């Protein structure tokens, strides 16, 4: 694990002299820029990795893993990688791809410095410990923040911890501040920049005895932050997850507003419920087409067909529709109406206006709402038979989401382990309902697309046949999922599960 020192009372020359006296060889100074890349939500950081484009003696990507593991280096030419497809085959690309999935890599922190690399070798000529001295440190990301004047980073070779300890002890005598972690973490910390990425959690810290109106406001403020964080990336179409997270925050907001009928002032609920319903509706088609395009290879796998020239025009047509849907969505997102909605909502959430129709503590209120959402889900689910129309499953999916959102947004009130176990049961049901709905949407889109393509004279018969096979395969899968529903629902609607939810809610029902 690297150890770093920030030093303010000595110069780089003095540190280098000390290192030379300790038997280190020191390279000539070099200007190095290091740009840390991660997804908006910090997936690499979460996976214990740090990816940086380093420009100095060479231009390379450096991927740091868990402390004690060697860094991976990959020579790099051209723009920094953005999407998983920009990464080459092989272990480096595979590690990054596994962590980021469909998200784009963005520059999250940039730091430049004059660097003196030093190392001490053993009698075989092998480096056993390296010390890197950084001076003239600057960071475009850090803005006006004060940065350390001098940082020394010490890293030992595997199996040579004692050499590292001796170097660390020598540097400690220079009376600097010692930090666990490397140069980047040390500078980012000093600059007040986070490398963790934007949080996606809907859960905010709450206590059962908190005032219900305050608690609902806190939950809704957190959801608004998520919306505002993801809005620019949604408009710029950086990656599909921005729109996904934006939409989920809208849906959660709508759900919490609706469930807050005894807590939030009626006029506020009515005004904003309508506004967010419109916003949700305006973003739906673009997201449906995102899912379709992203899942295209999986869809083709249903008919054992690879992404090929035969089906490429269908994908191209879907991508064109996706693009149009995004353009239409952006017109709404950039409109004065949306700006006003978000500004007004922020104003109300951050203000103190409004009186709760039924003042009280949040615990009992949330317990009631969750119990009621569960009751609705069970009642509606039990009414579904093999003859029920697809809409009934779609409605049940909404019921399940409502319950899930309450469990997530007010999750800090509940025992984490028991909540996780219950949510896992609920998720199993939701997976079935979600796939059924996705297939319904895909079938409808593909049928419409087949008609449209047929009207275009350039479309060949093979392609239409492929579309026909796809429609058949999707419909088969939809029916299969539909048949599985009864079993999934029965697995959820058990005495044990119902009891588990009651036990989960009991501690907050009467705080």
């Amino acid at each position, binding site marked *: 694990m690297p150890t770093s020192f920030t030093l303010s009372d000595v110069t780089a020359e003095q540190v280098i002299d000390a290192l030379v006296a300790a038997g280190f060889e020191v390279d000539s100074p070099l200007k190095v820029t290091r740009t840390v890349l991660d997804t908006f939500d910090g997936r690499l950081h979460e996976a214990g990795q740090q990816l940086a484009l380093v420009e100095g003696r060479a231009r390379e990507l450096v991927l740091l893993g868990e402390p004690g593991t*060697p860094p991976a280096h990959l*020579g790099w030419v051209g723009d920094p990688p953005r999407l998983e497809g920009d990464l080459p085959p*092989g*272990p*480096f690309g595979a590690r990054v791809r596994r962590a980021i999935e469909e998200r784009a890599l963005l520059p999250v922190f940039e730091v430049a410095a004059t660097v003196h690399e030093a190392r001490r070798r053993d009698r075989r000529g*092998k*480096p056993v410990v390296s010390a890197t001295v950084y001076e003239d440190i600057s960071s475009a990301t850090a803005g006006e923040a004060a940065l350390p004047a001098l940082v020394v980073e010490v890293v030992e*070779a595997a199996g040579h911890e004692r050499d590292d300890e001796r170097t660390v002890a020598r540097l400690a005598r220079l009376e600097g501040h010692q930090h666990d972690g490397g140069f980047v973490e040390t500078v980012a910390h000093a600059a007040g920049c986070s490398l963790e990425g934007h949080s996606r959690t809907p859960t905010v810290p709450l206590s059962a005895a908190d005032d219900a109106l305050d608690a609902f406001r806190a939950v809704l403020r957190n959801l608004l932050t998520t919306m505002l964080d993801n809005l620019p990336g949604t408009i710029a179409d950086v990656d599909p997850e921005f729109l996904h997270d934006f939409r989920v925050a809208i849906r959660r907001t709508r759900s919490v507003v609706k469930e807050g009928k005894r807590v939030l002032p009626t006029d506020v609920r009515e005004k904003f419920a309508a506004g967010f319903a419109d916003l949700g509706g305006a973003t739906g088609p673009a997201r449906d087409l995102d899912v379709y395009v992203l899942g295209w290879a999986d869809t083709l796998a249903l008919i054992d067909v690879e992404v090929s020239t035969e089906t490429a025009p269908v994908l191209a047509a879907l991508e064109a529709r996706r693009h149009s849907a995004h353009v239409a969505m952006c017109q709404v997102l950039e409109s004065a109406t949306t700006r006003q909605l978000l500004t007004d909502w922020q104003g109300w959430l951050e203000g103190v206006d409004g009186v709760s129709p039924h003042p009280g503590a949040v615990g009992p209120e949330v317990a009631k709402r969750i119990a009621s959402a569960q009751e609705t889900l069970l009642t509606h689910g039990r009414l579904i038979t093999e003859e029920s129309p697809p809409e009934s499953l779609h409605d049940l999916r909404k019921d399940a989401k409502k319950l899930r959102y309450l469990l997530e947004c007010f999750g800090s009130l509940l025992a984490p382990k028991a909540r996780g176990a219950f949510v896992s049961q609920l998720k199993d049901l939701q997976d079935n309902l979600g796939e059924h709905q996705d297939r319904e949407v895909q079938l409808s889109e593909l049928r419409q697309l087949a008609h449209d393509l047929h009207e275009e004279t350039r479309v060949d018969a093979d392609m239409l046949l492929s579309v026909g096979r796809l429609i058949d395969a999707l419909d088969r899968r939809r029916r299969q999922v539909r048949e599985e529903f009864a079993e999934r629902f029965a697995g959820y609607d058990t005495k044990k599960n119902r009891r588990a939810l009651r036990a989960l809610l009991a501690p907050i029902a009467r705080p």
Partner: protein
Amino acid sequence: MRAIATYSIKGGVGKTTTAVNLAYEASRGGARVLVWDLDPQGAATYLLRVRPKVRGGSRRLVSKQGELEGHIRGSDLSAVNVVPSDFSLRHLDLHLEATKRPESRLSSLLDPVADDYDLAVLDCPPSISLASESVFGAADALLVPVVPATLAGRTLTQLADFLDDQVEGPQVLPVLSMVDRRRKLHRELADDLAKEWPELLETSVPSAAVVERMGVERAPVGRFAPRTAAAAAYRELWQELVGHLWPPDEP
């Protein structure tokens, strides 16, 4: 982590030079590499400038209490670490025999460090023994250097016959080593091997004085002679192995 073993029943075919050069090229290609020197001669250990010492000897290393992590040493190459060899490895067969499941012992020693490395390169001594079987249990692929000689095909057949009896053996990837394209016999034998062994890798490593210099430089060829044909061949070999070990649809 993927594991490859540079392996051959024959000696002097370029196993260690292939292991060390491949480790270097893999590290330049973005991999974190662990070289495990299983040859008591310790040539890979020497070339990578690591002290030839297995703390507690190979008996302790493969025993029930043994673990690999404490034996790992940094090397002269930034992303390449080494489990060094020493002379105690000459008894590896005996020490493995004393364990409960010798054929999977090397694999179980590698498991705990699997997340820390992308590639393990096992440099094996020339033999077919219990240690070899343990290597076959640990490796995803055997990289078998083959010199263009009349009995080369026979050596490969012996190995393939042996592996046919294994339920889940590693893939065998023969690679031509020490090839002198100026010699007609080498060209003919290389062509014959390619016909007989479709698995033969396209890359062939040339016979070159620069490879012999590795012992003097104590470094891989790409480090001290990057523009030579031999260095280019090892780079190509790594690229070819990427296609085998990390197919595009299997991240």
